[in-house]
């Protein structure tokens, strides 16, 4: 029961605070105890090369195989070879973030449709339950 996610070169992290919250980034170098040098890559996630505090990062399970201080092209190549973006999208963490985002962006009509759909679902479930218990 030790640590499995480390701050290391190539670690993919989710930014959890600040103007870039919700975006992925790759750690390309460690500056000191609290800060890391981070790059999107800009092509894939929109994050430019910058200094970021580790306080703002949530480490994911993915590590891109890149050398220290890799140029953006290398990071993009590693992301494509390892299919990091697709792998991330298929994790339940990413899916939960996506549903949260979707729910927050619903219009009133969408919320009405959700209400109706929920009602229909419970109708089917209770009908099945009564069938089984009877």
């Amino acid at each position, binding site marked *: 029961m030790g640590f499995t*996610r*480390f701050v*290391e070169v190539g670690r993919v992290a989710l930014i959890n605070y600040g103007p870039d*919250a919700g975006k992925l980034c790759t750690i390309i170098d460690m*500056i*000191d105890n609290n800060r890391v040098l981070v790059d999107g890559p800009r092509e894939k996630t929109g994050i430019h090369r910058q200094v970021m505090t*580790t306080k703002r990062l949530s*480490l994911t399970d993915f590590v891109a195989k890149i050398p220290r*201080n890799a140029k953006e092209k290398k990071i993009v190549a590693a992301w494509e070879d390892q299919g990091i973006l697709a792998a991330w999208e298929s994790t339940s963490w990413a899916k939960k973030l996506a549903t949260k985002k979707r729910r927050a962006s619903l219009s009133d009509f969408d919320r009405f449709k959700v209400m109706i759909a929920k009602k229909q679902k419970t109708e089917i479930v209770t009908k099945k339950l009564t069938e089984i218990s009877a």
Partner: protein
Amino acid sequence: MPTKMRLFQVVGRKAPTPNDESPQIYRMKLFAPNEVNAKSRFWYFMHQMRKMKKTTGEILDVNEITEKNTNYVKNYGIWIKYNSRSGTHNMYREYRDVSLNAAIDTLYNDMAGRHRSRFQSIQIIRTATVKSSDCKRVTTTQFHDSKLKYPLPHRVVRPTTKQLRSKYLATRPSTHFN
């Protein structure tokens, strides 16, 4: 990210007189928040080191020197002379950072925190980017491992935006995310 301290190059000389038509020109690189302070610091140092002061001299040029490349981490070695409460000492300090200005910012804050020395008591003698093999301080050399990795233990969770802060939470927050 804008830093408080910026590096300026100040060039000045004693004002020309009939005796001395073209006096020796001196150039100083110094750290100051802005050009006005840079010029002021120039006279402060020149007055200490040469027979020259603001009234008898003239500043020929002030230029800001910006960091060439902030896209990789460097080790900065900084030699300083500072006044403590009971004497004046030399010091060599190392900082890992992306730009010299940021390292100098950290230096002043660090000196204030560790030695209670303020801006006026510190004189920066020399700065240099130091090769990783030549670094002397453990706090910098510990980051020179090519396979460096460390976990983030005991993470204190912070809501994504200030608006999402709440005084009370339904459940105790988890601090282990590894």
